[in-house]
């Protein structure tokens, strides 16, 4: 699996709140990152000191030309960051640290927040399955696991209403350490839209560099399985619409029921 981003390293953890005075940055909700848009690219500054350049749904080859066009702006932003934080490095040194971001089964410390053992194990399994079994099979394995978890939770707890189901899912996510699950209200929903969920601090993908893949098949299938079991119908679909793996900073899932 390869990350499709170009990353610089300040070499130290940083306090993002000090950079908020640079008015071209905006804080993303519930994430330890600041972002700015740069001639079609997204420049993200992480609290672990990494500065990541990427474009949503584009691979590295496709963003390289834009990086050349934006090189002066990139240099200028890095200079601003160094000056604001009082770091004892030069922009030239940081630029020379730049590399194409590679992910592997041993590369879990992309986002150095409190990661417990189970998150490390979960991500190791996830990336190992992609590396060894290929994208299709890896997705199927995660889906099977997620579906079983979702169905079992509903079978055991037997929620009596959709509201109760949603409360059950929120607790399940907390108990399992999968992330913070919340619901999203949509102004214009469709009659078949059952729910829209947002996950912050996702155990599967939070902090992962963009890999042009939606990574959270386990979560997606968990939601699908839970609704399928709750409604006693199979024609339920769950789609992941946002994921760190695609360059977003949280996960989002839409659950639909189709005709019975």
């Amino acid at each position, binding site marked *: 699996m390869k990350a499709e981003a170009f990353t610089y390293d300040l070499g130290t953890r940083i306090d993002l709140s000090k950079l908020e005075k640079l008015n071209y940055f905006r804080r993303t909700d519930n994430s330890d990152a600041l972002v700015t848009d740069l001639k079609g690219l997204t420049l993200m500054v992480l609290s672990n000191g990494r500065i990541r350049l990427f474009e949503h749904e584009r691979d590295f080859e496709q963003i390289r030309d834009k990086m050349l066009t934006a090189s002066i702006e990139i240099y200028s932003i890095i200079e601003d960051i160094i000056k604001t934080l009082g770091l004892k490095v030069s922009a030239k040194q940081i630029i020379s640290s730049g590399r194409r971001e590679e992910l592997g089964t041993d590369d879990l410390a992309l986002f150095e927040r409190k990661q417990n053992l189970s998150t490390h194990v979960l991500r190791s399994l996830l990336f190992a399955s992609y590396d060894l079994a290929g994208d*299709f*099979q890896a*997705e*199927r394995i995660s*889906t*099977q696991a997620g*579906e079983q978890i979702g*169905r079992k939770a509903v079978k055991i707890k037997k929620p009596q209403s959709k509201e109760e189901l949603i409360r059950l899912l929120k607790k399940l996510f907390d108990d399992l350490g999968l992330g913070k699950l919340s619901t999203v209200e949509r102004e214009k929903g469709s009659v078949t839209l059952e729910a829209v969920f947002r996950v912050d601090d996702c155990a599967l993908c939070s902090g992962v560099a963009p890999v042009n893949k939606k990574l959270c098949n386990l979560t997606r*299938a968990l939601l*699908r*399985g839970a609704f*399928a079991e709750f409604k006693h119908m*199979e*024609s339920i*679909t*769950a*789609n992941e619409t946002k994921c760190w793996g695609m360059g977003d900073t949280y996960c989002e899932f839409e659950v*639909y029921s*189709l*005709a*019975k």
Partner: protein
Amino acid sequence: MKKIPLGIPGLDEMLGGGVPENHSILVCGGPGTGKTSFGMQYLYKGALMGEKGAFISLEQKSKRIVEDVQNAFSWNVEEEIEKGNLLMLDVDRYNFQNMIDLVQSSVMHHKVKRVVIDTITMLRLFFRDDYEFRKGLFNLLDFLSSINVTTIATVEKPYSVREEAVFGLEEFIADGVIMLYNMPKKNQRIRALEVLKMRGTDHSKSIYPFQIASDGLNVLLEEVL
């Protein structure tokens, strides 16, 4: 090699008892040749034999298919659906992942052994180009075999007679291909079928007429075209 009877009289004899287990078989034909009925008969007869099935509908609403089949044939499809022996599933047609989720859930959770996908032609809409389609189709058929289901997938073809048959990449990937025709004879049309390909087993190479009656499809082996 274990064989799975299709439940279509005459055709099972042409195949020496049925199709090899866990194979993916394409049923190809033009409009009105009986592809959907073929798939439903495969599942219905399988349910009567104790093998659960799932019908994945990418084109028509599954509710409509059940109504049509109940009206056309003397089968009690609704009873098998009520018992949970037959799952009728609609798919969000532009999402390949959702379709695979449905199949996987049917098999792993409901212990389905027979799957019909109607129609694989619609799958092409899920992909940007032929390369991605071929990869997706290969992954799908390989996956189905790996989870121990025997699959019938229908394929829409623009022709109704043998002489106009053109083969797409699906026919090369699948384990078996059964062609359905609606051939003109004098002032009417005759339905006919042939087994073009079936890996792992010998099969009849002749074209036979078949009829669609109240009990379903029936191949007339006493006539050869």
